[in-house]
């Protein structure tokens, strides 16, 4: 069964097309990364999913329920973490936890999360560091053991050790409770470590939905070439059909998309001293999408 189904979602703010016809599906027990540069429409999509914003067009279904008309019922099963610090500054962490427990009722696991994240719930939010506020946000999202987690940049402001802890917590949620996780992120190594699939967004439109393994298989190479003598003229290099990323003192860094063999054949005709081929990193692959 599909945990989240977004179909042809559109949200405009006047002339600005924040989200322009986005569609995707997330399976149960899947961790789905939502990537894109600032202003791509990630937070707008999340706010539509949470029924904070009303879409101009399209449909959002979560666990088979309409995200707009059955929003309150649906939120019993959703854990949400906002990108921004939206906590009550004069309350303590415990006061936040208590209110949510009283509203939601049912079984909660906040003590376990407090221990895992090493969080002090008795301090007022205004005295907490951004990392500790993020911990509280995560506790509030996870404490009622939701079936769906919607997280807007879950590890923002956390140190690498805590980032690792959060990744572990999320993976445990999936393994033990088959939780479906939708997370937006700018942290590509985090996406690589935790997500099964990613959706790449650009200017309010989906530019790719791929599994992490498929993205890694993309034929994108970086080639370092060093010349024995002077670097050939740009005119000559243009025939290679590659992109020159950087010019070195005695060589060039090239980016190659697609088949590499014809490029190598052409390069062999140049006066090369040395050559090094690497697969592009995930970051470089994403940069390709963002361009």
């Amino acid at each position, binding site marked *: 069964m599909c945990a989240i189904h977004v179909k042809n979602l559109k949200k405009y703010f006047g002339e600005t097309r924040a989200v322009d016809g986005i569609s995707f599906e997330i399976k149960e027990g899947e961790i789905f990364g939502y990537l894109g540069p600032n202003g791509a429409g990630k937070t707008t999509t999340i706010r539509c999913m949470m029924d904070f*914003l009303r879409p101009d067009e399209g449909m959002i279904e979560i666990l088979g329920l309409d995200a707009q008309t059955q929003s309150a019922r649906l939120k019993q099963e959703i854990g949400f973490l906002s990108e921004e610090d*939206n906590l009550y500054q004069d309350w303590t962490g415990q006061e936040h936890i208590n209110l949510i427990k009283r*509203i939601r009722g049912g079984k909660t696991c906040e003590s376990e999360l407090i221990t895992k994240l090493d969080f002090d719930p008795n301090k007022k939010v205004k005295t907490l560091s951004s990392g500790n506020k993020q911990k509280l946000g995560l506790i509030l999202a996870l404490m009622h053991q939701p079936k769906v987690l919607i997280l807007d940049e879950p590890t923002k402001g956390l140190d690498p050790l805590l980032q690792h802890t959060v990744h572990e917590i999320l993976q445990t949620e999936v393994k033990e409770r088959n939780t479906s996780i939708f997370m937006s992120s700018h942290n590509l190594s985090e996406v690589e470590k935790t997500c099964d699939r990613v959706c790449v967004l650009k200017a309010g439109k989906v530019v790719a939905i791929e599994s992490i393994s498929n993205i890694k298989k993309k034929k994108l190479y970086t080639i370092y070439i060093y010349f024995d003598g002077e670097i050939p003229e740009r005119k000559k290099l243009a025939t290679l059909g590659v992109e020159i990323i950087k010019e070195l003192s005695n060589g060039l860094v090239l980016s190659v998309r697609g088949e590499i063999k014809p490029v190598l054949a052409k390069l062999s005709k140049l006066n090369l001293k040395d050559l090094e081929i690497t697969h592009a990193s995930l970051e470089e692959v994403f940069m390709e999408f963002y361009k």
Partner: protein
Amino acid sequence: MLPLVTRVIKDNRTFFIGNAFIWVLFIWMYVAFFPSVSENALQLQEAFKSYPESFFKAFSINMDVMFTNLEGFLSIEYYSIVWPILMVIFVLTYGSFTIAGEIDRGTIEVLLAQPISRTKIYWAKYLAGVILILAFVFLSNFSVVPFAMLYHVKFQWQALLTISVLGFLFSLSVFSVTTMLSSLFSSRAKAASLAGGVLIVMYVLNIISKFKVSVDNLKYFSFFHYFDHSAALIDNHISALAVAVFLGVSLICTLAGLIAFIKRDIAT
């Protein structure tokens, strides 16, 4: 809904206590003054005779009872300006925060992420406001009783009850207008300043209408006209029109605010 109502009341306890303290001090001052004012009633009435008739009309001053009974004295000194100003400040501060303040600070997302409908969030905030207003109305009127006893001043329970009902209706309508504006805007300052502006215009309209016969009808556009403290305290009377206007405005604005809150986009 109940956890939210209790939480809102708890969050406003310091604000409530602070306001209540100021209010009690005012009441204490007026009641403590009254015995000496009463003793010099004749001289004071003589001094006031030189004032123009329109002045008495503008501030609903009844010279016959102004210095001779506590209700008449409080009607002029306390309920003509001080009480409405304090109540309006309290209601604007709380009312503008109900929705717009939460959006302004982003905290509305904490509530909207929970399995509770926007309708319930709105009513919880509204109900908490009504409870706080009731508490203020009670405190600001009935704190007269211990001080009156302390200074051996006669008072009428019925008059205090009537002014409390009128004060509650007045505050409820101001609160409903403010809550409606709070639902329409995402900025607390905008909601509060617009509501404040509306009330200032109403106050001015009421005063102008009493000074100029040609614009007498303008008074019907002002809450301050219907807040006839003098009739409530001295005659134990609230006009049916005042009740209808206050309840009508409250109902319309509350429902308009609810619809606006349900339908709007919330982007913090």
